[in-house]
């Protein structure tokens, strides 16, 4: 713990109530963030976290209650400059303009003027370089912002926030799109900045991260503040209980695992794709859950995408349920009996403006109609049963998926993957950006599906996803470097994914 309560809190919100129409997004909520701390804000989707962030950053005025910074009342809502000097938020959605250079993004709308009132690009670049150097962000200011990866984009956004004078920064799920190594670098950066007096409010779905880098944690549930405690004094089970409102259940009952004489539903033999993976061979039996672990760039995603025909292996074969689908063809893979949850539901998983019913049945038009015409009744019936089975929270199958929360959207993707009763289910990052409860539910569903005799391949770097696997194959730099049976320790698997040999 660092010096507490000696000075006024960096930011404090008291008695905040915010309504949108009839829904109450925040009910007399409060939060107090002490200087120099890293403060975690956790809660399930819909708990009121995002609303609290927009109140704290001045984007939405609260209906009741007050926000104070360093003991002073917050500026007027219209005074954006004053807000920017006190607080900044790095959102999941980028606020960077892709076609402009990093330098210009940093000083957008406050360019340096040279003679005659014209912009002096040299000064802009010099100042940008100076700014990034100050906070040791190693990025060339002349690169176009669209060339940056998520990690460096976040660093640039943090630097920009600091350049306005803000020393209180909200990070909205900063780790959601990062691989393990990048997360470690981000945490190192957060620690550095904390030493230099920057205060962070850290929003995350991953409790592990909260324990790793945060000093204090605040839990929100159902639009209310539930508790604030120092991380050291709050056991995990209690934290989960505070978030879900019930005592945490123990780990899922041990699965029986596949019977030894089950047939292979997936055979990958000597598959290679230059630049992604090399000489990969493995099998999955009916009813078996196999994990494909590895960092984001390890090649695990490419392997999984090859299995379902999104990519074509240069060499080697893929056999699904006894047949060899045409390589590089998704329809052929689906035909052969594969179901698929793609890496990113926003890009590949869903058509946001289409209804739940349409999205869930995209892959099976032949089952919900005849001769190319779709039978709306049949489709909605199918969707209704999927909504029931996967406990999707929606008034009905006709709602556009864009209206659902992240967890429920992912369930729709899952529903579609299961629509053709697959013999093999391939999941890539199945619980990314999903709240704790939906995650438990989805993983429970996966086990259930495996019990019914489907083989499952989970390509993920999320330990919780991998925990239910019968076997985990670790991919490092395009090769399968290790295989561990159920019952591994976290640190072993993480070390293997990072290519570190703990025994050496």
């Amino acid at each position, binding site marked *: 713990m660092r010096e507490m309560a000696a000075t006024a809190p960096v930011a404090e919100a008291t008695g905040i109530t915010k309504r949108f129409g009839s829904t109450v997004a925040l009910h007399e909520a409060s939060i107090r963030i002490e200087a120099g701390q890293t403060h975690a804000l956790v809660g399930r989707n819909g708990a009121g976290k995002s609303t609290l962030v927009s109140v704290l950053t001045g984007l939405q005025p609260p209906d009741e209650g007050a926000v104070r910074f360093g003991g002073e009342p917050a500026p007027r809502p219209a005074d954006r400059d004053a807000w920017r000097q006190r607080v900044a938020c790095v959102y999941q959605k980028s606020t*960077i*303009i892709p076609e402009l*250079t990093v330098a*210009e993004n940093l000083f957008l709308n406050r360019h340096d003027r040279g003679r005659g009132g*014209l*912009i002096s*690009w040299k000064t802009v670049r010099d100042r940008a370089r100076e700014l990034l150097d100050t906070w040791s962000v190693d*990025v060339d200011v*002349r690169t176009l912002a669209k060339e940056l990866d998520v990690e460096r984009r976040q660093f640039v956004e943090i630097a920009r926030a600091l350049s306005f004078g803000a020393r209180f920064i909200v990070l909205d799920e900063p780790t959601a799109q990062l691989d393990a190594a990048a997360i470690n670098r981000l945490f190192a950066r957060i620690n550095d900045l904390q030493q230099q007096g920057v205060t962070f409010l850290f929003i995350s779905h991953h409790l592990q991260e909260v324990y790793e880098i945060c000093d204090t944690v605040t839990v929100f549930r159902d639009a209310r503040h539930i508790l604030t405690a120092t991380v050291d004094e709050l056991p995990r089970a209690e934290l989960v209980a505070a978030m879900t409102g019930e005592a945490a259940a123990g780990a899922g009952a041990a699965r029986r695992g596949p019977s030894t004489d089950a047939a292979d539903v997936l055979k990958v033999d000597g598959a290679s794709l230059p630049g992604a993976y090399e000489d990969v061979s493995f099998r999955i039996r009916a009813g078996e859950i196999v994990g494909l672990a590895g960092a984001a760039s390890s090649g695990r995603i490419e392997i999984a995408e090859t299995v379902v025909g999104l990519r074509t292996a240069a060499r080697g074969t893929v056999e699904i349920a006894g047949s060899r689908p045409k390589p590089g063809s998704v329809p052929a893979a689906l035909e052969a009996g594969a179901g698929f949850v793609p890496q990113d539901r926003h890009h590949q998983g869903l058509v946001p403006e289409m209804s739940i019913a349409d999205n869930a049945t995209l892959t099976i038009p032949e089952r919900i109609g005849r001769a190319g015409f779709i039978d709306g009744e049949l489709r909605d019936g199918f969707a209704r049963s999927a909504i029931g089975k996967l406990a999707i929270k929606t008034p009905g199958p006709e709602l556009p998926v864009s209206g659902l929360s992240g967890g429920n959207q992912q369930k729709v993707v899952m529903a579609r993957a299961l629509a053709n009763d697959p013999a093999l289910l391939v999941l890539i990052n199945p619980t990314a950006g999903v709240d704790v409860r939906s995650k438990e539910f989805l993983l429970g569903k996966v086990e259930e599906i495996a019990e019914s005799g489907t083989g499952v391949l989970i390509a993920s770097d999320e330990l919780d996803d991998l925990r239910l696997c019968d076997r985990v194959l670790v991919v490092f730099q395009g090769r399968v470097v290790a295989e561990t049976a159920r019952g591994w320790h976290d640190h072993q698997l993480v070390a293997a994914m990072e290519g570190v040999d703990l025994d050496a």
Partner: protein
Amino acid sequence: MPETTTAAAVTGDSPADGPVGKGPSTGRAGGRRIAFARLRDLALVPAIIVIAVVGQVVNPVFLQADNLINILQTMSEIAVLVLAQTLVLIVKKMDLSLESTVGLAPGVAAWLTVPVGAGHGLGLLPGGWSVPVTLAVGVLIGVLNALFIIRFGLHGFIVTLGMLIVLRGILTGISGGQTFFRLPESMLYLGTTQWFGVPASVWLCLVLFAIGIVVLGFTGFGRSLYAIGGNVDAAKAAGIRTDRVLWIVIVTASLLAALGGLLLSGRLASVASAQGNGYIFTVFAAAVIGGISLNGGKGTMFGAFTGILLLFMIQNVLTLGGVPAQWIGALNGTIILIALALSRVTGGKAQE
């Protein structure tokens, strides 16, 4: 352009900057991309040189001063439209009604000032009013467009398509489908005068582009256009008053179109009821060939200028080569499509 070109210049002369980017590979790739971005800006320059050489081979008249000035003069009116459309495209909107503004703005001025008896003229205003009326009509059309697009949140494509049809209909209505002749002196001035031996319209066009290059590249206002077209939420977050900028852009575009119409009417000493019809395809094509993205936030004024210049040079070469006038239209369209395909290949990325 200025940002990227100057950036590339820095890449060349300051190796002392030391390693940049996360690793050596990304740093270098970044540098190469910057150089490439700058090349994209000058992408049409080799093509322009090639056409100049071809033109000279086809007919030695091509590179003579008279012919070059002729090219610049015939393209000056439509080039002003390209300039206007470029502004609109960069903020991720589009304005199809520019081509009908070219006809209607001077058409209204002629209608009000041409004396009774000559065609459909009303002779209500003295001739001196014709230029202010032309420009005012342009501003009014821009305000209407902006009202629909910004205030009512309608898509620019459908709004300006409707506006195009309405404006064209109004011109047909007031002119009775005929051509206005005997325009007042002040309307002819810009289209006919020579300054330093070069037509005033050429000077005007070049000066407008020079201003456009400076504004887009070196002023906060110009950069805010790119910010809005690239990511409007980010622009708002950076404190840019996006609606105000959009209003200025849309109204300015219509004003420029009215000016283009004035130049054209002056040069032809008449306002035909079909003046400007069919221009918009050439305008869009020139902008896209010149590297302006239909998705907003991308491209430079210099690129747009090279786009329209290239198209008119090709047209001139065809004429000099003795291609029958009846076939020029078909060839022109084909050439534009080929040029679009080529710019897609050289640009490397799909034009969405």
